[in-house]
């Protein structure tokens, strides 16, 4: 239900009722999306879309933090205790 899909803003328009609309591409499939909640989004930015509304601009710098964290975790993974899959 709370599914959010990342897509890239390809166009920004003004709507007749004063809510910013635009076109967002989801891996090549484009859709008309309301951009009223992401006034900072520019063409080329990635946004998170839920039921026709962009609810967040995706922060690329924060997105990269996970890969840095993974590097450290690789060094930590040492001895292993049994998992649920081993037990079942």
């Amino acid at each position, binding site marked *: *239900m*709370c*599914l*959010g*899909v*990342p897509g*890239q803003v390809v166009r920004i328009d003004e709507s007749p*009722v*004063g*809510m910013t609309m635009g076109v967002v591409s*989801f*891996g090549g499939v484009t859709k008309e999306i*309301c951009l*009223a*909640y*992401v*006034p900072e989004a520019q063409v080329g930015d*990635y946004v*998170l879309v*839920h*039921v*026709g*509304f962009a*609810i*967040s601009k*995706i*922060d*690329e710098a*924060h*997105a990269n*933090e*996970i890969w840095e*964290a*993974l590097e450290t*975790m*690789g060094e*930590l*993974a*040492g*001895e*292993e*205790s*049994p*998992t*649920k*899959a081993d*037990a*079942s």
Partner: protein
Amino acid sequence: MKFVDEYRSEGSVRKVAGSIRALVTRPWTLMEICGGQTHTLLKYGIDRMLPELVTLVHGPGCPVCVTPLELIDRAVAIARRPGVTFTSFGDMLRVPGSELDLLSVKARGGDVRMVYSPLDAVRLAEKEPGRQVVFFAVGFETTAPAIAGALLAAERLGLANFPVLVSHVLVPPAMEAILSSPACLVKGFLAAGHVCTVMGTHEYEPIAARYRIPIVVTGFEPLDLMVGIRMTLAALEEGRHGVEIQYSRCVSPGGNIPAQKLLAEVFTPCDRPWRGIGVIPRSGYTLTPRFERFDAAKRFDVETVTAEEPRVCIAGSILQGLAKPRDCAAFGRECTPEKPLGAPMVSSEGACAAYYSYGRE
């Protein structure tokens, strides 16, 4: 797709799982709130990659599941009226009421339509001024801004034929209901990433402090979930509580301010019944006086009988993390996704339906 595929890499997920095995020394029970997260945990076998010491229980975060049976009956009664075009999201149309689901109303000649966005329903109302285009609004804080946006558009367009049946629910009061139970087993929460994308984290700080519990705002892809679980377990092992954000590419502590502003104009909190749990104070949204004229519950006077849930169903315990689907005598026997007896089996995101689909019997 960017921001999706890289978070599904099995190698990365297993790497984090390995670091979790090195980290955990004691038994811990964690709860993810959101039904979408429950689905991903089981689909990708994340539950099976965790050490035996870690138990995942599944929260009430499937809005379709927790919509009371009575409200579905009311929706069905409205949809059967002449002159009504009834619209909602696809998963809501399949939920069985006491007698019928909304798709069966369509099969019997009713005008019931699945829409991708509430704005599609507004466009429909604009195109067909002679019909009442009703929208059945279900969802958490993630979905509420879309309903608020549609209502603002309808107001600006001067539409008199866009009634909305509001059944919005809110996450923090449900978390409090779970934590305040003396039987509560949950030691750490994965908070729902998209709810917090909208609302930020300020509502969770007092909960984390009061119950001295770690709450990690987590995303929806397998890697997000495994990292969120690791962050929660690390806090527990180190005796820390508080709110942390795993899903920082979409969530900031302040949340989406323009969305919150419009939510405050359109909605006000109200007590709401949750299917399988009961009434939770201030756990839902109702329309503010300015938008009251769009309230379908007031526009259509339909009588519904209080529907009783089958006694064998233990949905309440499952939704509060006190039991697992396989603890229920009816699971997979009398109760299946085709013929659900209770809330967590009615939508694919419910815990029982997810256990059934992915063979956790």
